[in-house]
């Protein structure tokens, strides 16, 4: 696979790792947060921690849209799916996220709800067109990457005059979340820099992180999702930190520009507007961090067509996700980890998908606790 295999080369990896080891200062630690689940995935799956010096610690951020979806929204989605007239379409990832009482869309489907997995938003539009007697709701989820396809789907449904297609919108905004993490700074928080989003940045451009970097004085390196991308970005962060810089740098130049994809941005702006505030699982409410359909597309908004409970459901009292996401604690520090809380029965956002901090550690890294 061209542009993939080159960035997984083990010989290059060994040498970049050696460079990192040589450049880190032995007298300090480097707490680097990768915001994106894509990076968490690469770090876990390729075993990158083994290639890093002990004083470089990767902190897994909240960067998986499935993990940050609040339990209450899952409950709302399940309630929608259970309406007899509704066919709920969504991406595979979302289907096993548990809401209240351990129920998930997968289990609701097992109980008879009409839930369909799609790999693309336009498949949901097609299902609506083919089933005029069904109310097809697309449970839209994702960061800035997945939002433009949802916008196109809404536009296509409008163009086709589909009266039976709506979107239950859960699209969220990355920079606001990074701001939320940084401004929610508490005692013990120690983040020295960010590995910045790859594909999100393809859409929104690297400049989007400049305010956060400047305001909080933390370096950000936009990084590709291949393991060499991550290693190189870590090296770049180590250098910035060592040099006392707090800039936005771009490692992923083969896909990310300063401005991002203007066409996609315009498409999103036409269909969506910012919500005053949106709840993130594990992070709480963050102002201007979520999107909703504009008034002009109200007819395609599932939240306006159907009654939505909109209740806020707290995570397990013992869950330490908040502090883990801020780098204060590690998964093993949570007393629910791997007993009450497992990937099969997650109690908090960090355990929900394989990209969550706790789940990634459970699935790929537990041997390190031994």
């Amino acid at each position: 696979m061209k542009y993939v295999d080159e960035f997984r080369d083990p010989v290059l990896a060994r040498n970049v790792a050696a460079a990192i080891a040589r450049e880190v200062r032995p007298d300090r630690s480097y707490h680097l947060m990768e915001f994106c689940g894509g990076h968490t995935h690469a770090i876990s799956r390729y075993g990158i921690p083994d290639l890093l010096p002990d004083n470089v610690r990767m902190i897994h951020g909240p960067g998986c849209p499935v993990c940050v979806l609040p339990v209450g929204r899952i409950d709302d989605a399940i309630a929608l799916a259970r309406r007899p007239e509704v066919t709920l379409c969504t991406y595979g990832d979302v289907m096993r996220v548990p809401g209240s009482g351990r129920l998930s869309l997968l289990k609701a489907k097992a109980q008879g709800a009409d839930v369909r997995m799609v790999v693309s938003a336009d498949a949901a539009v097609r299902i609506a067109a083919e089933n005029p007697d069904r109310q097809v709701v697309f449970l839209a989820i994702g960061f800035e990457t997945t939002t433009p396809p949802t916008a196109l789907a809404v536009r296509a449904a409008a163009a086709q005059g589909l009266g039976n297609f709506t979107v239950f919108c859960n699209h969220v905004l990355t920079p606001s979340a990074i701001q939320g993490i940084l401004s929610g700074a508490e005692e013990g928080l120690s983040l020295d820099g960010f590995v910045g989003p790859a594909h999100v940045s393809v859409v929104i451009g690297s400049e989007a992180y400049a305010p956060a970097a400047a305001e909080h004085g933390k370096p950000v390196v936009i990084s590709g999702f291949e393991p060499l991308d991550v290693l190189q970005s870590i090296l770049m962060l180590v250098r910035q930190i060592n040099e006392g810089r707090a800039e936005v740098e771009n490692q992923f130049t083969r896909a990310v520009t300063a401005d991002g994809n203007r066409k996609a941005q315009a498409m999103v702006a036409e269909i969506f507007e910012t919500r005053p505030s949106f709840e993130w699982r594990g992070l709480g409410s963050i102002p201007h961090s979520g999107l909703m359909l504009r008034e002009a597309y109200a007819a395609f908004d599932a939240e306006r067509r159907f009654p939505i409970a909109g209740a806020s459901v707290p995570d397990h009292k013992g869950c330490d996700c908040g502090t883990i996401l801020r780098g204060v604690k590690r998964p093993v520090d949570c007393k629910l980890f791997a007993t009450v809380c497992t990937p099969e029965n997650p109690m908090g956002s960090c355990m929900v998908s394989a990209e969550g901090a706790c789940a990634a550690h459970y699935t790929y890294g537990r041997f390190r606790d031994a």
Partner: protein
Amino acid sequence: MCLAVPALVTALLPDDRATVSLGGVTSTCSLELVEDVAVGDYVIVHVGYALSRLDAGEAERTLALLAEVADAEAAA
């Protein structure tokens, strides 16, 4: 998050779509979010949509930078 792969555009299809190929696997994607894509280009595909073209020159530069670091280490 945001699983996306760099895929080679092998054919342009009607309705602003394209056939793409990834290591012997063929799929289709929408080109509605990108402009001026031609057969032979690589695009970053996410949930069935090309999010951007991949800049081959930049990819070479990044690999060159990595090789440079590596060479320096190997020499060290």
